[in-house]
């Protein structure tokens, strides 16, 4: 038998969703196999089944030719399957070695044998070419290193088959490259690897074979060498897609929005913004690139009035709105597509009509004094639904009953309808399918062309590069560089995102 893992006819149904339907999946020994699919296609569900987190409703799993029943992650581990989740599961104030041995500690009688733990960690790290200090504490090391710890943890438990769920989401381009090297080393040592991703570029760079999943069904399994990005995109989405955002050169005008020497604390009371300076002009898109957790969230919260600034200024249309309430800031001409549409963007139990006026609900014509005018509100919601092609039976259904893409379209529609001077778009396409991404990108560019300023914050470097006219890189609460999008390369941005400096850094743009 050549397959280390074989999943046959897997079906898994969640209330209202067929997450997997008769899925067949085979992993060869010593290969890197990508599971490619859009968000919600069912790739993670399939791997959670393999790792024992879910039980399939139908289907069989064979590991090394033997049929097995995986009831829990410990069954999976016993069969040599290890999984690194998208969100790491590490104890923040333990050391690397302590985290790696956790749950399978070497013991000296009843005491933890810490020396052996450190030794084991070193041995296993050296064997696979990981550069990591077993004695450093998790909260002090980078996200890229934390990921290595997660991989080592799986290897320490004897994993022969490694599942990595969206491993590149939190990494800089350079760290992604490093991960590629690590994975190649692992394969050389005889491990087999499954990568879950929706990023086409990485598929081409890292894998041997690709299995494409769409709406819970396997579309095809192909050899990476025999395919290309366009073909993969088409199989993933089900139609030809335009991977490039079409836009004319920007025609920027006067500066409409400024942030000056902004400082703010995060929720732990630590300085998260260390003197941010930014300017956005009418008619341009300023993108902010950066690895998650470098102050993006705090920056947007301060701008929109959800967090207090420690010092510094936020200025829109020459008006200082620092420390003003969210309501006053909305009314000053800033609208905001929030990074988490479920937490901030929508009141999920409210109807679309009620959601369509959030932030404008006390304004005419939606309200007259304290009485609301529901006829007008519904008319307005219908207009947005039509214009933005929100797929919904009507405007009375709860926002929660819509798909993520349609929910996001509703949020985008509402924020544009506020007729703002500046649109803040935070991760505007997170978790959306390619069709919705295309639409929202087009819409943001259209708003730019109408003369609005757009401040785009995204963790997807590709998105920032595709949309922005200028790119500011944020690192550790500071803007470490502003580049003209025409001159910005992935490599340069990557170096800045990791806290490095560019030798030839032009002080281009308005900094």
């Amino acid at each position, binding site marked *: 038998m050549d397959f280390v893992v074989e999943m046959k006819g897997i079906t898994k149904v*969640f*209330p*209202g*969703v067929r*997450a997997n339907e008769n899925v067949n999946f085979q992993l060869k020994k010593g290969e890197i196999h990508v599971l490619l699919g859009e*968000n*919600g*296609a*069912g*790739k*993670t*569900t399939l791997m*959670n089944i393999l790792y024992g987190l879910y039980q399939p409703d139908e289907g069989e799993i064979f590991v090394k030719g033997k049929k097995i029943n995986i009831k829990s992650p410990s069954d999976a581990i016993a069969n040599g399957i290890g999984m690194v989740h998208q969100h790491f599961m590490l104890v923040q104030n333990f050391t690397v070695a302590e985290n790696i041995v956790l749950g399978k500690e070497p013991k000296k009688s009843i005491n933890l044998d810490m020396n052996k733990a450190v030794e084991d960690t070193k041995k296993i790290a050296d064997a696979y070419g990981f550069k990591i200090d077993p004695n450093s504490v998790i909260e002090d090391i980078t996200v890229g290193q934390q990921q290595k710890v997660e991989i080592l943890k799986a290897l320490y438990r004897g994993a022969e088959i490694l599942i990595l769920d969206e491993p590149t989401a939190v990494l800089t381009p350079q760290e992604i490259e490093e991960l590629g090297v690590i994975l190649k080393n692992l394969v050389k040592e005889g491990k087999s690897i499954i990568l879950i991703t929706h990023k086409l570029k990485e598929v081409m760079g890292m894998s041997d074979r690709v299995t494409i999943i769409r709406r819970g069904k396997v579309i095809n399994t192909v050899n990476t060498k025999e395919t290309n990005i366009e073909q993969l995109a088409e199989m993933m989405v089900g139609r030809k897609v335009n991977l490039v955002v079409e836009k004319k050169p920007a025609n920027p005008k006067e500066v409409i929005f400024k942030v000056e020497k902004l400082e703010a604390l995060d929720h732990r009371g630590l300085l998260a913004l260390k003197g941010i300076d930014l300017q956005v002009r009418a008619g341009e898109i300023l993108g902010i690139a950066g690895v998650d957790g470098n102050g993006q969230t705090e920056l947007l919260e301060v701008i*929109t009035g*959800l967090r207090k600034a420690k010092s510094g200024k936020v200025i829109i249309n020459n008006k200082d709105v620092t420390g003003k*309430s*969210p*309501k*006053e*800031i*909305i*009314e000053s001409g800033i609208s*905001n597509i*929030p990074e988490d549409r479920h*937490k*901030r*963007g*929508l*009141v*999920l*139990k*409210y109807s679309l009509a*009620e959601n369509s006026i*959030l*932030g404008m*609900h*006390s304004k005419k014509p939606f*309200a007259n004094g*304290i*009485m*609301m005018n*529901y006829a007008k509100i519904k008319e307005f919601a219908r207009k947005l639904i039509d214009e933005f092609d929100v797929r919904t039976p009507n405007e009375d259904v709860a926002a929660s009953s819509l798909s993520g893409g349609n929910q996001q379209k509703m949020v985008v529609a509402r924020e544009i309808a506020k007729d703002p001077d500046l649109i803040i778009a935070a991760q505007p396409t997170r978790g959306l399918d390619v069709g919705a991404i295309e639409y929202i990108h087009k819409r943001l560019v259209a708003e730019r062309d109408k003369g609005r300023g757009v401040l785009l914050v995204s963790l997807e470097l590709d998105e920032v590069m595709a949309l922005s006219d200028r790119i500011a890189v944020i690192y550790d609460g500071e803007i470490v560089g502003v580049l003209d999008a025409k001159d910005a390369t992935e490599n340069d941005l990557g170096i800045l995102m990791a806290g490095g400096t560019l030798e030839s850094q032009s002080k281009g743009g308005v900094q």
Partner: protein
Amino acid sequence: MKNKKIIKSVASSLLFPLISIIVAMFVAVIFVMWAKHISFFKGVQVMFKAIWNGSFGRKDSFIETLVYVIPLLFTGLANAVAFKTGLFNIGVEGEFMISITVGAIVGIIPGIPPVIHVILVLIAGTLAGVLWAGIVGYLKAKVGSNEVVNSIMMNYIALYFSNYLIMGPFNKKGLAQTADIQPSAMLWRFLGDDYRVNIGLYIGLLMVVLIYIFFWKTTWGYEIRAVGINQYAAEYGGINIKKNIILAMAISGGIAGLGGAVYVSGIQHHAIQMVSFTGYGFDGIAVALLAKNNPIGIIFSALLFGALNTSSISLQMANIPKQIVFLIQAIILIFVAADYVYKWIAEKRKKGALLNE
């Protein structure tokens, strides 16, 4: 099409309360069988006859049921307003109680023209309730202290402060109560002086309509409901959360206070020393829960709880312990709570399925 949908949604929201009422009655019958050593069918017959006669079956008992319904309308609404904002106002009891005392004190003042006097009593009671709940709301909004703990403490302050006033400065010699309020401060008993039912009933029904409009037709209601469902989205949408918490508590307390004033000026006509809580505020929690915080639903759940309370006398006369009434109420509540838990779990599961994609 649309009508069908509405009927379906109404039916589905009524399903759980109805099932819970039926099951509660059924369980109660078992206890009746046990208490009286009779067969099941005999038990059904005895119990339902007693409850029916004691609540709706006779003119006297029906009117007395309505007397119970009056305070429950107010306390039910008061709790619903707080629930809708995501607050748990246990203090409706205390707000109700302090307003009885304040209402009685204002009612005793002689020489005020009739209509004005009643209105003064109602306003004084409402303000007392607003103050009592407003303190809790203010503390919650400004320092983040828990409204449950604070409102429970306010209940005790209301209890002992009321008793001090009733037994101290405003005591009627020789009795554990205040003097009767002036006739000018009494709400009109529209079925004559033999019956305690009064136009407070209509004030309560008017409040139901007002709160319904408030929730679903005003910007204040829009904001309060948004804060209750998702604070983060509300905050993002420019809604001032602190203001809404204080506002919701003040409105909740105001309704409870109005209820207390109606109780004293329409039903009791004086404030009696309280050995323990009146229970109307706590029953209001159950009334609001059973009605799922829907103001219209509160009419029906107040009627049910009022009927059960009134029938305790006729149950005793039929040699059935009156605790059966509490048993039925408790079982209904357990079921309604179970419904919330069930929905919560279902939502979690659904979310889990989506998140893991």
